[in-house]
């Protein structure tokens, strides 16, 4: 993972989205992916918050990596992460208060995300600025992608609507069905079901893709 000389920035970026997708492949950070994804708008904003924190943490750690003493690196990582989470949470409270009211608790929880600390420890503390940023962006976009897919699926199936954010403060609600087709999907139990089904689906795609690749080689 630290051999950046052989991997291009593009590969680093795509790695976080496809091969090591935080939710669908590593099964990390499942708490927010179940808690906030019953609404597309909340899912997108939560994913964006993680994207921001992940990228900024990776950049900061990689710039500081020469001056961090190895023995105290974990507390320092935690401080950096909490710093950026506080920035994110204050920004969201100021600019998107209605979303913050729903997902605020989980924004604070980003501090404890295994994926963010893992990238800081395994990648950013060993690599220079550009690869770290690419890695952070890739991981964050992968998370955003996963949360968007999950919340899209859950809201569509559970409520028959889609809440698409048009700007920071407004959202457009498209109603497909006036009855609730499958109410359980917006309830907490449905979160587990949605994550499980989508995880199986992406793994299935992966297996098919890998098989095809093996045949063509």
């Amino acid at each position: 993972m630290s051999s950046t000389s052989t991997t291009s920035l593009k590969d680093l970026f795509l790695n976080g989205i496809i091969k090591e997708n935080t939710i669908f492949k590593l099964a990390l950070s499942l708490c927010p992916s179940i808690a906030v994804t019953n609404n597309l708008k909340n899912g997108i904003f939560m994913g964006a918050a993680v994207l921001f924190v992940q990228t900024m943490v990776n950049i900061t750690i990689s710039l500081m990596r020469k001056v961090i003493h190895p023995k105290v690196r974990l507390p320092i990582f935690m401080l950096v992460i909490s710093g950026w989470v506080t920035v994110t949470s204050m920004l969201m409270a100021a600019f998107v208060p209605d979303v913050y009211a729903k997902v605020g608790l989980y924004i604070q929880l980003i501090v404890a995300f295994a994926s963010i600390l893992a990238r800081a420890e395994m990648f950013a503390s060993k690599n220079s600025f550009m690869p770290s940023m690419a890695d952070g962006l890739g991981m964050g976009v992968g998370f955003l992608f996963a949360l968007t897919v999950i919340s899209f699926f859950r809201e569509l199936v559970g409520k028959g609507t889609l809440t698409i954010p048009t700007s920071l403060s407004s959202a457009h609600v498209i109603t497909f069905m006036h009855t609730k087709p499958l109410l359980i999907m917006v309830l907490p139990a449905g979160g587990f079901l949605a994550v499980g089904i989508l995880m199986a689906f992406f793994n299935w795609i992966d297996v098919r893709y890998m098989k095809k690749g093996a045949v063509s080689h």
Partner: protein
Amino acid sequence: MESTKKEQLIVSVSPHIKSDETTSRIMWTVSLALMPAMLSGLYFFGLKALFITALSIISCMVFEQWYMKMVGKTSVLSDGSGFLTGLLLGMNMPASLWSFSPFTVHIPVIASFFAIVITKQLFGGLGYNVFNPALIGRAFALISWPKAMTIWNEPTAAFLAMDAKTTATPLGILKEEGLSKLIEVFGDKMNLYMHLLSGNRAGSIGETSAIAILIGGLFLLYKKYISWHIPVSFLATVALMAWIFGGKEGLFQGDPIVHLISGGMMLGAWFMATDYVTSPSVRNGQILFGIGCGFLTMIIRLKGGFPEGVMFAILIMNCFAPLIDRGFKAKVFGAVKQPKVKEAK
């Protein structure tokens, strides 16, 4: 003489004496035992009940066949477990689901998919499922379509009638308005008991007639397919708790009989809680399992948000079945308990 005898010897691993009981035979016998309750459901809820039950049986079998084909395993349709799940699922649904405006006919189909594919097959198929598939199917339907799943038709003895008045279940009335109102609705106390026993009351298709279910349950007991431990401890706990805490006026004022023969109590105790796969197999453990089911049922009925708690009680106790089995495991004969040795440092 000696040589011919030798050739007839079959060398095999134990067990050497096999009974002719097979999984499929048990499944079909349980299905047969459900027939009295099914017939009573047909009598009281008519053609709609038949359609809903048939729909869920067919969808369960189709989904089972489809899944087995998809994963490349041999068909297991003949073992009857898909049929039984579909039958139980259908019998646990209200007949009012057979309605086209609002459209609710898809509910048994989706619940069957959930029961067979997600609850049973994804966990490894028959014998590996943690939860009772039919109950999960019903719980899924109840949570997803809370309104459609709680429209109860008034029983009519007219078989072909497609229009029916809707009404509340006895347990619903008991929860909302109390026992005195329930007795008032049915005339007098004796009349209420008779309606509950015969099945002439609102409810799911197969759960209404306590007598018919009891016939099936006793048949299974006689055939030794189930043991008395789970149903008796389940029913006894419910009766005891209903007697002590069921009354509005104070302790020891409740009516245990109403609680015993209303709702899904009978069907749950005789056919759902006794499912081999999802209940403990150790006898003492089965008693604890039954007590747990009864306790949770009464907690939900008396204090919870739903008028009926049998389904959730059994599902919650299903989680504990492996733990109970481990706790009550018989001591291995001749085995000596190893004294705990402190690790030498």
